[in-house]
């Protein structure tokens, strides 16, 4: 014992339970290599394999449950081409462009159009793969939200009918994995993707992507893929500003904790452009004061519009456009999408909310905390839809909320689930389970932090496609839509592109980089390193940004890279994964800071405030700031907000869709 805590931990240690073989190479040649096995990756894999392509899909977790939607989805958005829909894809896009929270003028509207065009088709695919969608057994017969003819069930707006409740969303991912297996997709579970391989090993603008590398988080073995085309759909970077496993554990994440920005790191290192990296806020569900997702009383999203009562049973009214809603049916009219009337860019337009003056009314004693979600006051169909259909299918609710709460005696027919206790000023926080937010605990805004991509969902590099959250699409439906669309286009490219050799130097350099930490058994632990990086972002890239402070943040990362990062150690392949996640997050943090430096104006569309450029939305800054790495340096550039409607593209969404959908 040398007096080091790791020595104490090492006493009584057991051998790693998998056969470790660092450096051993596994090789495969495919038509389409997919990094990221979530909904978009799986949808892409299936759509490519069914067209006869040889496909490999790689995920840090198990395909059966991986990804943000892996544990379930309760509703399916933007099914504009579905039966009964009264919203056209054009109208849906217009809504996004007018709704700051979902993107506003910074919306990647071409991707939203693709989603609106293919969401329903993707849903029908799911149904074919065995996922229950409709209420076939009539459990909800007679409910306002159920169409008796199609037996589809709708959410939010029962007239617009663009958002469909899923009968069996919790089964989606296992069914998709089964379909991928059936079609012969090569599935690489528990393998972390680490880099893109390029023609002649050249990276930077103009590079061509021809494969990728990874390593097994169980055995440590190395993987090399040669691919005609590569699709990266690894989600958005998370946890750049916040890391603690000593409070709630890694469950202080809304999204999939595997979303550590690995894809962003890979794209940047290859030279592909990313954008909206400067969009981050404290609105998300990732703070340290949160509760299980959907597992506390709430009034928004999945819980809309559960009656809310105060500690004395007094009803708190729902309000829309300043008017109290008295009629239950009104809650579902013009609710979604609706055009936003509120300037508060946290509130999507249309849905009714609790009264905006609720904080004052609590302080004056009109309503008393705690509040409760009075499920008992809902009609049986609406109650069962909320607790049983939505809670039960939505992510992390089937066992962690529905069944576990039931085992503990919770009964929606008798019980009112308490809302988290907020200070009155924070009581309108939604969804409620995110808990109190503090400005230091920020997160990449989920309809941002994406790649620059065109109408084929190709990145700025040939051979490299993106889907899902990497296209700023935050819905399960959008993940499917972009996945299937990107796969078709990637295959079209793959069919035409010639063969080329992988660059051995590039592979060897990557191998050395990957295994370096596995050569050390002591030094700086990954948890402290991750927390340290988060502290740098909290201090230097917070709610108010400025050049001197941002640049100090970069100096911090430079010195971390030269010092503490060189001491990261990994005592097994799992730790090696965590170490490399730290590296991905550092790169994403640096991308964020560079993008923040480049945007020399504040904006109201997303939470970006500069004390040195306080002017909000000067017109000359209505543009995208892009960032990537070239010759080892971070470089930023610009693009018009409507670049996808300018030459060589048409100014018309439908024309572009018809030309580039590869159907």
């Amino acid at each position, binding site marked *: 014992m040398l007096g080091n805590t790791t020595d104490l931990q090492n006493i009584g240690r057991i051998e790693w*339970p998998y056969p470790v073989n660092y450096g051993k190479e596994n090789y495969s040649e495919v038509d389409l290599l997919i990094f990221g096995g979530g909904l978009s990756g799986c949808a892409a894999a299936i759509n490519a394999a069914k067209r006869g392509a040889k496909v490999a899909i790689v995920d840090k977790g198990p395909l059966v449950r991986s990804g943000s939607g892996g*544990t379930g989805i309760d509703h399916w958005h933007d099914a504009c081409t579905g039966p009964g829909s009264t919203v056209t894809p054009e109208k849906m896009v217009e809504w996004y462009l007018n709704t700051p929270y979902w993107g506003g003028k910074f919306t990647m509207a071409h991707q939203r159009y693709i989603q609106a065009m293919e969401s329903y088709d993707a849903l029908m695919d799911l149904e074919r793969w065995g996922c229950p969608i409709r209420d076939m057994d009539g459990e909800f017969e007679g409910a306002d939200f159920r169409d008796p003819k199609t037996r589809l069930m709708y959410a939010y707006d029962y007239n617009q009918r663009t958002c469909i409740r899923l009968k069996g969303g919790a089964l989606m991912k296992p069914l998709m994995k089964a379909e991928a297996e059936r079609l012969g997709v090569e599935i690489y579970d528990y393998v972390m993707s680490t880099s893109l391989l390029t023609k002649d090993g050249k990276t930077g603008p103009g590079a061509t992507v021809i494969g990728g590398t990874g390593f097994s988080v169980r055995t440590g073995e190395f993987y090399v893929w040669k691919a005609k085309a590569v699709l990266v759909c690894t989600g958005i970077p998370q946890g750049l500003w916040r890391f603690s496993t000593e409070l709630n*554990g890694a469950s202080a994440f809304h999204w999939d904790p*595997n979303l550590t920005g690995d894809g962003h790191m890979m794209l940047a290192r290859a030279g592909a452009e990313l954008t909206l990296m400067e969009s981050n806020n404290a609105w998300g569900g990732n703070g340290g004061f949160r509760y299980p997702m959907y597992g506390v009383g709430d009034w928004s999203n999945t819980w809309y519009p559960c009656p809310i009562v105060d500690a004395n049973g007094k009803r708190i009214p729902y309000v829309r456009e300043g008017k109290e809603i008295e009629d239950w049916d009104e809650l579902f009219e013009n609710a979604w999408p609706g055009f936003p009337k509120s300037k508060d860019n946290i509130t999507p337009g249309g849905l009714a909310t609790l009264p905006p003056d609720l904080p004052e009314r609590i302080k004056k004693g009109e309503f008393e905390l705690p509040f409760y979600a009075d499920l*008992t006051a809902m009609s049986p169909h609406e109650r069962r839809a909320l607790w049983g259909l939505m809670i039960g299918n939505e992510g992390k609710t089937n066992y962690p909320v529905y069944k576990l709460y039931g085992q*503990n005696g919770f*009964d929606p027919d008798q*019980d*009112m689930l308490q809302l988290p206790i907020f200070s009155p000023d924070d009581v309108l926080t939604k969804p409620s389970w995110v808990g109190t937010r503090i400005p230091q605990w920020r997160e990449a805004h989920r309809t941002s932090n994406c790649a620059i991509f065109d109408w084929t969902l190709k990145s700025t590099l040939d051979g490299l496609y993106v889907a899902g959250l990497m296209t700023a699409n935050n819905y399960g439906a959008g993940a499917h839509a972009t996945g299937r669309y990107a796969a078709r286009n990637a295959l079209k490219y793959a069919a035409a592109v010639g063969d080329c050799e992988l660059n051995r130097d590039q592979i060897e350099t990557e191998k050395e980089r990957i295994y370096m930490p596995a050569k050390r058994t002591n030094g700086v632990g990954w948890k402290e390193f991750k927390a340290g990086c988060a502290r740098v972002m909290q201090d230097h890239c917070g709610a108010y940004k400025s050049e001197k402070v941002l640049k100090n943040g970069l100096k911090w990362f430079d010195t971390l890279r030269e010092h503490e990062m060189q001491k990261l150690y990994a005592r097994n392949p799992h730790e090696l994964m965590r170490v490399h996640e730290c590296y991905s997050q550092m790169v994403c943090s640096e991308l964020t800071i560079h993008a923040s430096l480049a945007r020399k104006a504040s904006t109201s569309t997303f939470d970006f405030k500069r004390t040195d450029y306080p002017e909000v939305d000067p017109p000359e800054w209505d543009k995208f700031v892009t960032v990537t790495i070239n010759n080892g340096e971070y470089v930023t550039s610009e693009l018009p907000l409507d670049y996808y409607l300018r030459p060589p593209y048409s100014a018309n969404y439908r024309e572009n869709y018809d030309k580039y959908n590869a159907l």
Partner: protein
Amino acid sequence: MPDCEYSQAYLVPNPMTPNSAIIFDPEVCTGCNKCIDFCRTDVLMPNPIEGKPPILAYPDECWYGGCCVGACPTPGAIRMDHPLTMRATWKRKETGEFFRIGMKNPPPPNLRPPVVE
């Protein structure tokens, strides 16, 4: 002589928080290890002794997804606990009684299945 037997004292690191996240019942678990291959955060490891429950190697990395419990073919073999910082509360409307997740004497369970199993 003390009136009760104290436990033997060992030099050990602090308990990890959250403490347990996933709890196996060694009497029920068959060691099939199916849960290990469903965990998305890779926190479960095979026990070196075949047939014994998996080891929760990283309770601090658990995402509380419940995929392990969902995958388990043997009811009662595995359960999940939310951390003490994240346990929900409710009130029974008729009686005003206070309940929460993780009580010593919980009310009788409500075993109505969700819409789709």
